[in-house]
């Protein structure tokens, strides 16, 4: 066997090992998850009762903005890049990622970006306060001075994502073990391959949007300033051309994780593998041609409105195929309910609810009422949190024994699951009611008829927050003192190359490629 890891801090600073980099990505995203979660707690504490209690409205807006940015770019995306780093080489029988030095760079610039972003909280004038969607001219003419740091941070995050994606594409296309054809790859590798193409396509668009903002603010251009002949709506088109694929970038790798967990604990192969691949590709394609459904109230011509409505409704078809396939995989399986499976089942239920509200939002006339209300907030938290975060949590429980050779505490895992599941639903289900009854989103304060459900929602949010502390404890106690396991195959029903290497996975794996039949 080749040499092991270097000693000391140098191991982490200079490493080109996919497992080390995967671990760093996961811990980084976990810490960002707590930072973004802290912002969420401030938001929910302020909204606990009508009236301004804890923060002023300007700081409230900084919290909603930073919560969105940190969760999307700091927690969810790096979490799945971390999983990709750890698992894709193991799943396709590669010794490492194709571009290991770039891998190191793409990770290490990420903490720098978030230090820049977080530092804006301590600047005069405060952090960005214009929402994570930073619509001009609120983010240009009317922005705090810290907007330039925000732009710089987003540029770095984009560079990191693009490098990470190129690396994943290069690895999957070039480094599969002999016999591992594309249509034999695990779904997680497939969903990431498609996600990586999405990222390479749209991250430059985001970079373009923030660069135009930078020019408008500092160099006298008027891309988005109507007074100078520019167009504020153009910003929204550019942003959502990035933003809509972005939400699939977040959810597709989650689909891959669920497609690994459900067959394992159903002890039955994934139903409709090839249709799953085609559905994923179809969703990715559709994600490029539906962006203006986020803009049904900007005053588009009716022809545009109708087109974007029809195209958006189409997404329900491949998404439905995926849900039906998961359910059919479970049907007549031999199911056991370990913690990863609980998270996967919760994912299917809650993601489907998020999908249903997605179809409702797709109907342009109905969206006139739903748009920019708590109904939308509920919708995307069902997809982002119950989708991406539940799937990520399930993935951690699922692969943790393989990573560290120790078993997590199953009872604690289940308690954590139920606390998260119940807390999540108490927090976000009532937000549907609030939105339908007319409460707009991004409100620092609200009228009295919304008081009751807001209070309920806040209590649920605190529960959900507590569940994450429990998760941290469970992971830490497993890594430090969990029961040792050595079986290569942690789970009875698990299939795939990652379960053929020893547990814990050695520092170098597949130095000789495995044969795949």
């Amino acid at each position, binding site marked *: 066997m080749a040499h092991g890891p270097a000693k000391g801090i140098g191991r982490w600073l200079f490493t080109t090992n996919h497992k080390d980099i995967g671990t760093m990505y996961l811990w980084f995203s976990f810490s960002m998850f707590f930072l973004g979660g802290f912002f969420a707690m401030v938001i929910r504490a302020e909204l606990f009762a009508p*009236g301004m209690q804890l923060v002023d409205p300007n700081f409230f807006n900084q919290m909603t903005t930073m919560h969105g940015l940190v969760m999307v770019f700091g927690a969810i995306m790096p979490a799945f890049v971390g999983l990709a780093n750890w698992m894709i080489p193991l799943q396709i029988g590669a010794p490492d990622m194709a571009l290991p030095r770039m891998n190191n760079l793409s990770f290490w610039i990420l903490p720098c970006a978030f230090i820049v972003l977080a530092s804006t909280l301590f600047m005069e004038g405060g952090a960005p306060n214009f929402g994570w969607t930073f619509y001009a001219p609120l983010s240009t003419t009317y922005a705090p001075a810290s907007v330039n740091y925000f732009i710089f941070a987003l540029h770095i995050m984009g560079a990191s994502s693009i490098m990470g994606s190129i690396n994943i594409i290069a690895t999957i296309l070039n480094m599969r073990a002999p016999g591992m054809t594309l249509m034999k790859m695990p779904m997680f590798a497939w969903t990431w391959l498609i996600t990586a193409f999405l990222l390479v396509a749209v991250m430059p668009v985001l970079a373009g949007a923030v660069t135009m903002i930078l020019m408008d603010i500092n160099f006298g251009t008027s891309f988005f300033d109507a007074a100078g002949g520019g167009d504020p709506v153009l910003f929204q088109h550019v942003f959502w051309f990035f933003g809509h694929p972005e939400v699939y970038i977040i959810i597709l790798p989650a689909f891959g994780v669920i497609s690994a967990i459900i067959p394992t604990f159903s002890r039955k192969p994934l139903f409709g593998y090839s249709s799953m691949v085609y559905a994923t590709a179809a969703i990715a394609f559709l994600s490029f041609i539906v962006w203006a459904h986020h803009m049904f109230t900007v005053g588009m011509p009716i022809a545009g409105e109708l087109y974007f*409505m029809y195209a958006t409704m189409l997404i329900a078809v491949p998404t439905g195929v995926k849900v039906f396939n998961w359910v059919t995989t479970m049907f007549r399986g031999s199911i056991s309910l370990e913690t990863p499976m609980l998270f996967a089942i919760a994912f299917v239920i809650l993601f489907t609810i998020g999908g249903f509200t997605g179809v409702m939002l797709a109907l342009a006339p109905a969206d006139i009422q739903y748009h920019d209300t708590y109904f939308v907030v509920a919708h995307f938290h069902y997809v982002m949190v119950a989708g991406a975060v539940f799937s990520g949590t399930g993935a951690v429980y699922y692969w943790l024994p393989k990573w560290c050779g120790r078993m997590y505490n199953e009872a604690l895992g289940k308690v954590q699951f139920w606390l998260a599941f119940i807390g999540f639903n108490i927090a976000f289900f009532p937000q549907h009611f609030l939105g339908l009854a007319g409460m707009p989103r991004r409100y620092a304060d609200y009228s009295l008829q919304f008081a009751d459900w807001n209070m309920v929602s806040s209590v649920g949010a605190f529960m959900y927050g507590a569940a994450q502390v429990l998760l941290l404890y469970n992971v830490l106690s497993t890594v430090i003192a969990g029961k040792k396991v050595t079986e290569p195959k942690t789970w009875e029903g698990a299939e795939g190359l990652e379960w053929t290497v020893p547990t814990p996975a050695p520092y170098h794996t597949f130095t000789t490629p495995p044969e795949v039949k």
Partner: protein
Amino acid sequence: MLANAKQFIMRVLTPFLLFPLAAAAQAQQSGTWREVLNMTPGVTEVSRQIYDLHMIILWICVAIGTAVFAVMFYSVIVHRKSRGYKAANFHESTTVEIIWTVVPALILVIIAIPATKTLVNLYDTSDAELDVKVTGYQWRWQYEYLGEGVQFMSDLSSSNDQIYNREEKGEFYLAEVTEPLVIPVDTKVRFLITANDVIHSWWMTDFGVKKDAIPGYINETWARVDKTGVYRGYCAELCGQGHAFMPVVVHVVEKDEFAQWLDDKKAEAETLRELASQQFSLEELMERGEGVHNRTCSACHQTSGEGIAGVFPPIKGSALALGPVEDHMNIVVNGSPGTAMQAFGGQLSEVDIAAVLTYQRNAWGNDTGDVVQPVDVLMFKQGQ
């Protein structure tokens, strides 16, 4: 420092300690548990069409969800390893894949029909009997009755004391304004919606109307309300720190009542124009100016005139308020391009601008002794 920390912790904890009590009190007092649950049908044809569409799609989703989850829970309960259930090994069927691709697609086509009809109706702004221009400002709405010479600002009327919990909140907290929009019943009203600074969104839930107010654009939408009453809505697009504090209130009245109201407003506008040629004393201007400042300027510059460090400059003791009157007037009338300071020349009457200038130059120890008359403002505007 320690006292501050303690105070902060108490503020954080109090809501939790009071939770059961407050929840019970509120449920009893507001009695709104039932109301805040679903969309309401509203009072226009469009809003009822939207409501029907919402209910159709909701029930379709409930039906599909029930079927899918029933199969899933059946498997989770029956096909369990702990019950000794042996796994089957099927993993492919082109037939079922085609079925569950085609059936949902057909359902979507069926929903698309009413959705398209509603949208076409919603977009038909032709043959309007009354045109109202709605302009979004940070953070208030301006309504202008086109061709009638009537326009006014509609500001939030819930007090700062209510917002900061120093006073009990009223029934229509954050949903009440100084002057509501008034429109006649059974009349097709066209709204022309734009904004002066950032993007806002004019949302009247009961009318099924939500349209973004975008600087540089004039968006069109319409409503024909068939029931008189007071309707309340909100700004729906994040527009800065006052986003939650610029509600929309519309009074829908009988047609003759509206005609009377419009005549009164025209007369009022005439009076205001006459006032502009009169002379006022310092006391009169100070009194009026304080009101204008607290309504219009204090969201940024604060009622204390101290502003917010690093964000909004102070007026108290500032070089501008203590320097030449013309510079001060120029900023208020024309705004400061590239900053959040708007041009108030078109928003406020000459009397109000004169009053607020006088107030800002003499309040908070500024004590310049300057008295600005409406006629000065008028001449400044005309001299530009």
